[in-house]
C-alpha cells in the first residue's frame, strides 16, 4: 500500500516537473493564455472589489433610516416631552428630536413657500412630530418592527418610516452583487474555453507522443495527467495575473481616492483582496483550469488512436 502511494507520489512529481518543462518550452503561448485568463477573471473580481468597498463605506450609514411620529393635535407639550423621554430609553433608538407644532409651522412656511397662505388659517394645522433615529446597528427589518412598537403609543396619530434612499442603495448593491455573479459565471465559461483551446493545441502538438504512449501501454489517465497539470498551472497563474492587475489598479487609484477622501475629511481608502479572497481566487483559477483541460483532453484523446 505504502509502496503504491510512493509510486503514485513519485509519478505525480515527475509529471509536474515534465509539465513545467513543457510550459517553459513554449513560454510565449503559455504567457498569452495566462494573460487572457488573468484579464478575463480581473473583470468580475474587480467589480466584486468595487461592491465590497462600497458596502464597507456605506456600512456606517443609517441603515435603519428614520421614523417620523406625527402626534395627536391635542397633545400637550409636557406629554410630548414625556413621550420623547420614554422613547429615548428604548434600546434600538439612538436619538429623538422633538419638533413642536410651532416649529413645524415655521419650518413649513420657510420650506414650502406657502407661508402667506397659512396665515389665512386661524389655527396651526400641523401636528407636533417626534423624529426617531434608530441606532446604526439596526437593520431595515428592525426598523420596521420598531415602527410597529412606536405606533402603539396613545399620543401617536400616525408613524412613517423613511428608509427609501438607504434601501435603494442597498437594493442597488444587491443587484450589482448578483450581476457580478452572473458576469463571473459567464467569464468563467470564457476561461474554460481559453484553457480548452490551449490544451487542444497542446494535445495535437503532442499527437505522436500520445500515440506512442498508447502503444507502450499508457492508460488514458496517465496520458491525460500532464494536460490536467498544465490546465491547473495555467489557471493558477492566470488567477495570479488577475491579482496583480487588481493590485496595480488599486495602487493607481489610491492617490485620487485619498485626495477625494481628504476633501470629505474622511479616512476612506480602497481595500484590496483579503488573504482568504486571494486564496479563493487562486483556487477558482486552478479549478477552472482543471475543468477546462479535463473537458477538452478527454474528447481529443479518444480521437488519437495508433494506426
Amino acid at each position, binding site marked *: 500500500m505504502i509502496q503504491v502511494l510512493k509510486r503514485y507520489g513519485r509519478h505525480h512529481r515527475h509529471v509536474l516537473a515534465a509539465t513545467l518543462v513543457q510550459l517553459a518550452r513554449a513560454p510565449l503561448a503559455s504567457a498569452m493564455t495566462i494573460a487572457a485568463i488573468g484579464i478575463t477573471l480581473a473583470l468580475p473580481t474587480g467589480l466584486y472589489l468595487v461592491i465590497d468597498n462600497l458596502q464597507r463605506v456605506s456600512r456606517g450609514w443609517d441603515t435603519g433610516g428614520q421614523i417620523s411620529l406625527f402626534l395627536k393635535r391635542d397633545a400637550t407639550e409636557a406629554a410630548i416631552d414625556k413621550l420623547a423621554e420614554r422613547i429615548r430609553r428604548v434600546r434600538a433608538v439612538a436619538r429623538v428630536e422633538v419638533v413642536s407644532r410651532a416649529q413645524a409651522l415655521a419650518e413649513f412656511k420657510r420650506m414650502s413657500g406657502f407661508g402667506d397662505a397659512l396665515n389665512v388659517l386661524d389655527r396651526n394645522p400641523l401636528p407636533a412630530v417626534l423624529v426617531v433615529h434608530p441606532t446604526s446597528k439596526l437593520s431595515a427589518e428592525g426598523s420596521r418592527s420598531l415602527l410597529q412598537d412606536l405606533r402603539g403609543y396613545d399620543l401617536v396619530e400616525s408613524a412613517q418610516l423613511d428608509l427609501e434612499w438607504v434601501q435603494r442603495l442597498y437594493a442597488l448593491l444587491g443587484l450589482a452583487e448578483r450581476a457580478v455573479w452572473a458576469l463571473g459565471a459567464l467569464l468563467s465559461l470564457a476561461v474554460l474555453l481559453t484553457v480548452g483551446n490551449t490544451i487542444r493545441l497542446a494535445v495535437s502538438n503532442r499527437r505522436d507522443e500520445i500515440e506512442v504512449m498508447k502503444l507502450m*501501454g499508457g*492508460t488514458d489517465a496517465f496520458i491525460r495527467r500532464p494536460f490536467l497539470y498544465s490546465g491547473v498551472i495555467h489557471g493558477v497563474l492566470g488567477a495570479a495575473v488577475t491579482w496583480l492587475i487588481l493590485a496595480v489598479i488599486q495602487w493607481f487609484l489610491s492617490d485620487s481616492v485619498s485626495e477625494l477622501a481628504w476633501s470629505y475629511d474622511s479616512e476612506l481608502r480602497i481595500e484590496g483582496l483579503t488573504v482568504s479572497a486571494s486564496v479563493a481566487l487562486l483556487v477558482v483559477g486552478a479549478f477552472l483550469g482543471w475543468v477546462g483541460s479535463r473537458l477538452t483532453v478527454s474528447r481529443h484523446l479518444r480521437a488519437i488512436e495508433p*494506426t
Partner: protein
Amino acid sequence: MFASAVHMIEFHHVFKRYPGEYDALKNVSFKMERGEMAFVTGHSGAGKTTLLKLISLIERPTRGQAIVNGKNLAKLAARRVPYFRRELGIVFQNFKLLFDRSVYDNVALPLIVTGVEAREVGKRVRAALDKVGLLPKERLNPVVLSGGEQQRVGIARAIVHRPALLLADEPTGNVDIVLAEGILDLFLDFNNHGVTVLIATHDQRLINRAHKRMLVLTHGEIAHDSAESAQAAQ
C-alpha cells in the same frame, strides 16, 4: 484457459475487413507456442502488417477468435488494452521514435508509463541500450542517428520492459545486410531468453539464415506454414 498456458497466440478462422475494402485477412488460423520464434512473410499487401496490428490490438478482428497471451482480443475491454499492451514489445517499421527527447528517454518510455521506480528505470534502460550497442549515444537526440541506429533504439524500447511477446514489422527494411544480420542476432538472442518473437518481413535471406518457423501470407490467407509441412514430412 489451459491452452493459453501453452500458446502465446491462437488464431481460429480470423477475418479482418477494413471498412469499404476487401478482406485484409481471410480465414487465418495458426498457433504459436510461448517461447517460439516465427516469421510472417508474403508480398506487400498480403496482410503481414494487419496480422501484427490485430495481435497488438491496434485493430480488432472482424470475425473469428483470436487469443493472445490468454486474452480474447474480440472481447477485451478498451480500458484493459493498455495493460494488455504492457506484455508486448513492438518494433515499428517507421520506428515511431520521439524526436523531442533523448535516446535514453525514448527507451525509458515503456517503463515510465508503467510507473517503474527511477533507479530501476536507469538500470534497465542502460542494459537495453547496451544490448543494442547504443549505450554511448544515450544522451543524443535520435534525429542525429542513422537509420540502423534508430531501428536499434526502437528495438531497445521494445525489450526494455521484458515483454512476453516481441512483435517486429519489417525490422530490417531500412538497413543493409550486415546490419540486418546484427538485428536478427538480437532477436534470436531474445528468443533464447524465452521471449516469443514474431517478425513480419519480406527479407528471405533473413528467414533462411534464422532456421525458424515461417508463415507465408498470400492475399490475406496463410498459404504456407513451415511448421505444418515439417509435421507432414515426419
